[in-house]
């Protein structure tokens, strides 16, 4: 059975960083898919909701990963994922309305 990675600052730090990079990497992949692939298959109304509420829709893939990190007993990974999800929600909440309602 794998040892829980809670002891010592280095493994924990590395796991937090892995979680952060994993979430950011997935955001990038999903972002590319959303802009280049998904519009072909998804109803326009749902597409707008999914993109504008990205702070919420991100949990479709971040949520299961967080549960998996929990199952693996990797609290560092879990926290890295949760941190990026919270910041994504904040950025989405702050900027979506502005970008949608103001000309660049």
């Amino acid at each position, binding site marked *: 059975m794998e040892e829980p990675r*809670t002891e010592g*600052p280095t493994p*924990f*730090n590395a796991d*937090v960083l892995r979680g952060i990079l994993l979430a950011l990497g997935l955001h990038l992949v999903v972002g590319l898919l959303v802009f280049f692939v998904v519009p072909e298959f998804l109803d326009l109304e749902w597409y*707008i*909701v999914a993109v*504008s*509420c990205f*702070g*919420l829709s991100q949990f479709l893939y971040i949520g299961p990963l967080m549960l998996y990190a929990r199952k693996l007993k990797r*609290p*560092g990974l879990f*926290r890295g994922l*949760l*941190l990026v999800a*919270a*910041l994504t*929600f*904040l*950025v*989405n*909440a*702050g*900027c*979506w*309305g*502005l*970008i*949608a*309602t*103001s*000309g*660049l």
Partner: protein
Amino acid sequence: MSEPELFVSLGPVHPHLLFELLAYSLGFLAYRILRRRGDHFTTSTRWSLIVAAAVGAALGSKLLALLNEPSTLFENLSDPVKFMAIGKTMVGGLIGGWIAVELTKRSMGIRERSGDLFAVPICVGVATGRIGCFLTGLPDHTFGTPTELPWGVDFGDGIARHPAQLYELVFVTAFGLYLLFRKQRGNGLEFRALLLGYLGFRLGVDFLKPGELLWGLTAIQWACTFALVYHSIHWPLVRRLFR
């Protein structure tokens, strides 16, 4: 009705998005630098508190922003796009983050004060973020009421308004510099001082902002009032900071 334009355009990048991302980055950088001076918590515990603060801030800032625009909220209860477009508020973020950190500490059995290390980074983040709010102008809804004072700013609609974003920027910059350069450190009161100072400032400066009033105050001002009353028991301790 035409959509409001940005006060200052930075080309293809929205100024609010740019400065918000900068705010988180610079705030985290400030935290990393300050932590080198010493921290009585382990890295693991500190990360738990940071994540709790981020989650609490996300929930608190959204919840209070929704309450601050009740008419828009009730008109668009079933519209998730409008729900996200209402935005967020710093006051809710600060209070939500503080509550989440306190709950996390309680669940971990921690009784020591932990917020001092966050006080200056929060000032850095707020100051940077408010630059984005100012550059965004009218769409950001953080501008002040009309004024005839010489420093009133016309954000593009022909009306000179209080640059409330810059008032806040000046306040948090001064507060952050004071906390950074004062001689005595580590008494555990810097975060409480920031909380009291910032919420007191917002309670006052929000009278210079337009908003939906409920019994004479906006929801943000009511939140400031409740938090200030709750924290007022710490005021005699916080006063030590300014001696």
